[in-house]
């Protein structure tokens, strides 16, 4: 049994002559503890795939199952809850709330889930410490470097103990050194903490950190291979 499984996942934007098929019958399975990199030229449908997997958008046809539960049947509230508890997101632009400190930002999903504020912050600082930001708990995003901001975002994604982490070009806005560190961290997330991690990236060097590389073109998966370096 796979953690995520898609069946003929298709997404068409628009209708009639201007319709764009962003995803075309994609079948993909990802297991717990797997670190998958999704690559492909711009506009091939990588982000669209991530959105559908994370329940941010609904497919035109086909289905997404997470832990054997089809997402199609869920209401908006149920999907929100699923995102809150089972999925963690990491964005290219970090998307931290500028007025909140690192801890508060990382604790957000727990707070949204109605958890007690002290507990939530305790948990958030644990995660921040684990990923090396123990010194920066009280700082606000504008007092952090880009790499540090992305770490806060990763802590935020992990704080609810989700089964799946979705990251859309998490290193797109970082310098090489920080990018490598973030990729390593995501690998650690998969390996040490046993989450499934799906990361979209343009950078082949970053992709080499992953176990598996999925290559897309024109809305379809054209190649799905084990990472040679990883096997070796």
């Amino acid at each position, binding site marked *: 049994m796979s953690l995520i499984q898609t069946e003929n996942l298709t997404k068409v934007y628009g209708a009639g002559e201007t319709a764009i098929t962003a995803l075309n019958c994609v079948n993909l399975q990802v297991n717990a503890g797997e670190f998958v990199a999704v690559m492909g030229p711009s506009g091939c449908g990588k*982000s669209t795939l991530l*959105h559908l997997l*994370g329940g*941010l*958008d609904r497919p035109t046809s086909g289905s997404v199952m997470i832990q054997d539960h089809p997402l199609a049947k869920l209401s*908006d*509230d149920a999907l*929100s*809850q*699923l*995102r*809150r*508890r089972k*999925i*963690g*997101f990491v*964005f*290219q*632009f970090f*998307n931290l*709330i*500028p*007025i*909140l400190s690192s801890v*508060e930002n990382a604790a*957000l*999903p727990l*707070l*949204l*889930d109605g958890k007690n*504020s002290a507990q939530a912050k305790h948990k958030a600082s644990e995660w921040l410490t684990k990923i090396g930001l123990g010194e920066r708990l009280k700082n606000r*995003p*504008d007092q952090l470097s880009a790499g540090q901001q992305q770490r806060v975002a990763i802590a*935020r*994604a992990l704080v*609810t103990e989700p089964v799946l982490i979705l990251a*859309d070009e998490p290193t797109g806005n970082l310098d090489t050194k920080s990018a490598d560190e973030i990729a390593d961290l995501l690998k650690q997330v998969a390996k040490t903490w046993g989450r499934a991690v799906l990361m979209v990236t343009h950078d082949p060097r970053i992709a080499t950190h992953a176990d598996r590389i999925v290559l897309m073109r024109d809305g379809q998966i054209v190649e799905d291979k084990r990472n040679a370096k990883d096997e070796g």
Partner: protein
Amino acid sequence: MNLQLTLAARYLGGRKLRAFLTTLAVVIGVMVIFGMGVYLPSFTAAFEKSLLAASGQADVVITHKTGESFAATMLNRVRAVNGIAVSVGAVERIINIPPNFYGKNSTVTGLTLVGVEPAVAPYLHADYTTPTQGRFLKQGDGNVAVISERLADSLGVKLNDTVKLPTTQGVVKLTIVGLLPGRALTGNEQIIIPLAQAQKLLDMPGRINVIEANLGVTGEAERRAIVEQIKAQLGNTYTLGGLSSGSEFLGAMQMAEVIFNMLGLLTLAMGGFIIFNTFRTIVAERRHDIGMLRAIGANRATIISLVLTEGLVQGVVGTAIGIGLGYLLGVGITAGTGAVMKSVMNIELTPVVEPPLVVVSILLGVGVTLFAGLLPALSASRVTPIEALRPALSQVAQRFSRIGTLVGAVMIGIAIAGLLTGFFPLVALGGFMFLIGLVLVAPALVRPIANLFGMLLALLFAREGTGELAQGNLTRQPSRAAITASATMIGLAIVVGAGGMMFSLTGTVMQLFSKTLGSDYLLVPPSIAIWKGDVGASESLKAKISSIPGVGVVSSLRYAQSSLQSAAIKGSGEATISVLGIDPVEYPKISGLDFQKGTAQDAFAALAADERNTIVNGILAAGANLKVGDLIPLATPTGLQEYRIVAIGSEVLSMKINTAYISQANLKADFHKSEDVFYQVNLAPGADVALAEQWLNQIVADYPQFRLVGGREYTAEFSAQYDSIFIGFYVLLGVLAFPSLIAILNTLAIGVIERTREIGMLRAIGATRRQVWRTIVAEALLLAALGTGLGVLAGLYLSYVFVEGLNASGIYKMAYAFPGAGVLAATAVGLIFGVLAALLPARQASQMEIIKALRYE
């Protein structure tokens, strides 16, 4: 603290200026409503209380419907009714005290002269039997009086001193024989003298104007039966119970209260627009944050409550401050107008805070804020999580709803159609539809108007492209620009509307004034127009004035109160009327009426004839639907008398009071009134002015109830007085206009905050500080021009509605005057406000540090 509150507090804290401005909008709206709520009811309450006090403590108080005197023998009819324990006849008359009559520092401006039968009155007023010093009146007393200790204090007199009083016989001195304990009632202090003496001093021999009676039974049903019997005995020209006069004035006060509440509501609506606008921007600005929250699992309800919590915090804080400031405003207005009210009407004002007012203010303040935040909150909840994954780009070219534009256009059409019908309810409804219509159409107008002004600005700020940039900034957010403009519009509409109304009023009044009060000299009583309390002089004064060498024409006014029953009169079907007696020969020589129907020549000739003819003024004709040729039954002390209307005409002093002019001969015959309350004097050509004036002064010195003033001087005084009454109103208008300044400031500030990155980019690629500054100022000018244009348009409509409304309500009758100066002033103020509002944000934008701006999230 829960998440919503934390986020609300942090967001507000992070944008202090904006949070302050938004909250200020709530503050001002609540302040106006609360302030007016504190002031107006206290005013009406005080007025009602003094009316109640006037009606006394006896079981039954009988007065003539006209308020005038009647034969003392009427008392016998009352005494004939079974079940009446005791009944007394009395004379009660308010006497206005001329300024400085009791010395410079005296605060006594009016007294009630009460003439009672010394032997019987104590049966009805127990306090008469227990004087604290001296004794009560007794049979055979002459010029003696009993007054309260409090009055004695304020007059600075003691037992056995004398106190002087203006009367129809000139000034008389009364010896104080007794002091009574202070009364708990508000209203004038009383001077109690023997009935016979009062009849002599007031020139009303054998007459009384009030009968008080106590009943010998206590059962409610029995009492009612007795009251019915009294009514049957007296006929329907008498009133039982309290005084009905003054109710007309109460009506006017209620109308004012409605108008002020309307203004308060409009202000709050304006505040609502500001808040709405802020929240829209907040949502637009935080699309990323909101999208991220959605992506990490916040559901729609959470997002809605997030935005609403922020609104709630501001609503609560704003309302609390608004109530505080509103209380101060109310107290301030009370203090500011208190002196005038006390001297004009003997009313003490104390600000009152009624619990319902607090509740309503809170509901409105918090409610409007939440309501204004609701739409943006809903739109925030529709932000998709995917928004968070897109790179940040401020939105370009919002669309506006075509349906809204269409509905707005239709509403404006209906409003104009309503205006054309001239039917007041439709005109009034049209006023609101016009405003709402403009608000709806505004977004569609932004682009063309911005383009138009943009061309002008391009000429001003040539070559730099700042004008175009400003224009572009506005047109890409037409709805937001329109909302700001709408807030400005409502603010200016109120100012132009109310200002236009006052302009019409002042114009009408001053025109009438110069026409009807153009004589060389006037002898003015303490209270003009509300003649009831004035003590006039007997015919001998007029004769004395006429005999002064150099005096050409002397004309006097006499006064009596009456009432008219007619199905056409709204409410009770009955109206109180001032009957003014004029000399049909002398009056037209020196004064005049502004005739709406009929001619001066025919009308005065008809009054001179030995028939019952009358000229009614405009407000009476409108209120009772009267035409020339109608016969109207006027209530007189001798019963109903039919007068034929020969013309409709008004003069300034009585323009807002139902008035019928009749000949002095008829006034004497039907109303038993022959005292003159107002004189106009013209000198003969070639007269020795100095000598004549000296004589006049000398004669008037014996009649301190009159003040001698020169005609021109009086006109100036009148217009000054008139202006001073309106100063409060102007202040209020200022308070109302202020939010529109904040609206523009707010939008601009938000616009600057929102475009921080863009501005940083502009600066990075080489725009100078000056250019950035100009862009913002140009944008402000565009916004202000839009708001001002629409505001003036709506204001003109509103002023027309106000004028028509006042005409229809019968409080004032006036012609609509186009407030040209007001329009110019409003335009100037609107544009100046625009620039003022721009200064702060423009400074902020131009001083921005480029690096910070570029990194701004």
